[in-house]
């Protein structure tokens, strides 16, 4: 892995009072993103606006595409053209992106997609929050594959996690999702952007060998293949069809097994390195409140109340939602009475917690169907009920 410092051109060093949407764009620019292709949609439009103002100034390209299918197609093209590329959307646009997200996974193309989630299904609640696309991020395209998804809880984290998303996408040649929501996207808070030399950037792994020997899918010792920039004399072929190391179609079960297993393994086998979470007062806890994104901030009020009433309550805040911390949940489930999972959907990450707990503890879903954040009292009641 080659690391470097951020290009100061894209880094707006200083303290800003900024919303989450803008912070996504600033994080991308700091990470070296120089291509944005997108189709504006509420509540993510401000990110696209910010990119349109800022990216030309730092020597990048902004294209408003004809739709969201085209957005991802443009990102794939830009990435193979040598740039770091990003788009932003919300539920309805995310649905339209799924086909080409699958293509990006199959082509092992690094790109970053932010989803400022709003209430769904369909057009749902354009201006109001939800966390209803969490499973779609994981399973939205067809076939078997793995992706990485992060969940920021503040404008500051929108900045920080977009940089992290770019680094992970380059490291594993995979699409990375920044799964934020309307509340965080539209919320203004202080965002501190550090000096460029304090921002660590993962460089793309460029192929340096002879021009006629490049194999786009031949894995290096770390399991990740090299990339080249198109237009520099390398002749290569990439396809969404099941392919061999050369990138040419090889349509049989043996090649499918190698090809698809690799897409899964490069994330699964590195899950421990990828997964990040925040734990608090886990030791000796009777109940754990597991949440992510904006809900973790809301849930904390309930946690404080529960602790006041003498309930030993620990918290886990998922920073990485996908890959899921399976082992961690399995271990925890053996030690606690219950895990309470509030989220602004009908219980999506709850299903994963329930699966990984292997019936060793109670797992309680605290759903909210979107439009607003939870009433902390509802989470508190669930905690109280869970330890009974």
């Amino acid at each position, binding site marked *: 892995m080659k690391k470097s410092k951020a290009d100061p051109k894209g880094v707006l060093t200083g*303290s800003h*009072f900024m919303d989450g949407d803008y912070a996504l764009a600033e994080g991308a620019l700091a990470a070296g993103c120089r291509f944005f292709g997108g189709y504006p949609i509420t509540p993510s439009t401000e990110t696209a606006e910010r990119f349109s103002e800022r990216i030309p100034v730092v020597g990048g390209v902004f294209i408003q595409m004809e739709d969201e299918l085209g957005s991802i197609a443009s990102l794939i093209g830009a990435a193979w053209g040598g740039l770091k590329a990003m788009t932003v959307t919300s539920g309805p646009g995310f649905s339209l992106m799924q086909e080409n997200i699958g293509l990006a996974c199959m082509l092992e193309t690094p790109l970053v997609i932010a989803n400022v989630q709003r209430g769904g299904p369909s057009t749902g609640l354009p*201006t109001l929050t939800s966390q209803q696309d969490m499973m779609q991020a994981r399973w939205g395209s067809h076939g078997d594959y793995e992706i990485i998804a992060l969940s920021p809880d503040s404008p500051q984290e929108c900045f920080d996690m977009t940089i992290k998303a770019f680094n992970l996408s380059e490291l594993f040649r995979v699409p990375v999702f920044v799964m934020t929501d309307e*509340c965080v996207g*539209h*919320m*203004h*808070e202080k965002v501190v952007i550090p000096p460029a030399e304090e921002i660590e950037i993962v460089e793309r792994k460029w192929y340096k060998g002879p021009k006629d020997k490049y194999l786009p899918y031949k894995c290096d010792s770390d399991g990740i293949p090299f990339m080249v920039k198109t237009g520099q004399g390398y002749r290569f072929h990439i396809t969404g069809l099941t392919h061999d190391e050369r990138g040419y179609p090889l349509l049989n079960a043996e090649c499918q097994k190698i090809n698809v297993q690799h897409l899964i393994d490069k994330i699964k086998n590195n899950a421990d390195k990828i997964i990040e979470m925040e734990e608090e007062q886990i030791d000796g806890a009777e109940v754990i409140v597991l949440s992510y994104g904006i809900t973790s901030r*809301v849930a*904390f009020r309930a946690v404080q109340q529960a602790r006041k009433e003498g309930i030993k309550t620990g918290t886990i805040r998922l920073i990485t939602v996908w890959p899921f911390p399976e082992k961690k949940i399995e271990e925890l489930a053996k030690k606690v009475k219950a895990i309470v999972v509030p989220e602004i959907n009908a219980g999506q990450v709850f299903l994963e917690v329930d699966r990984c707990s292997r019936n060793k503890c109670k797992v309680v879903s605290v759903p909210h169907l979107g439009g607003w954040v939870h009433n902390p009292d509802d989470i508190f009641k669930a905690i109280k009920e869970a330890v009974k």
Partner: protein
Amino acid sequence: MTEIRFSGYGGQGIIRCALIGGKALSIYGGKFSTMNQSFGPEARGGACSSQLIVSDERVLYPYITRPDILVSMSQEAYEKYQNELKDNGLLITDTDLVKPKTERKNITHYSVPATRFAEELGNRIIANLVMMGFFTAVTKITTPDVMKKALPGLVPDRFLDLNKKAFDKGYEYGLEVLKEKTQ
């Protein structure tokens, strides 16, 4: 923790008030602040509001529940939001634009002719800055210097001085009102 709602009608700079307050307090005032605004069709023309939470610790719950301070710059906004103001809360209104119907007994009410002062200064568009000056004086939430530091970038450069003047006008009036109250 202090919960504040700024309210009025679209076009008065209600959102800007919370942005100025939030930026000033979180970047120059040593506090944590979280600002939210209403999105959607209700923001156009009709009642418009923005929310600001100010705290010594990190703000967790992102929305106001019952504001400690309600600033109203229109009758409609006042009527829409006055009930949610906390007991012993502080109501701040534009003297000419809001006529409280039945004054709540358990709150403190200050008013400033923000729009009239702004017109006297040459442009009613800076009424929100008169209001922010007045707000700063009567709430003592921070110093006027901290508030004014937040203005560059949030008001057009060529109107920066005028905005500062409007702020000072409101601030001085606020000090006078406080003085009268204690006498």
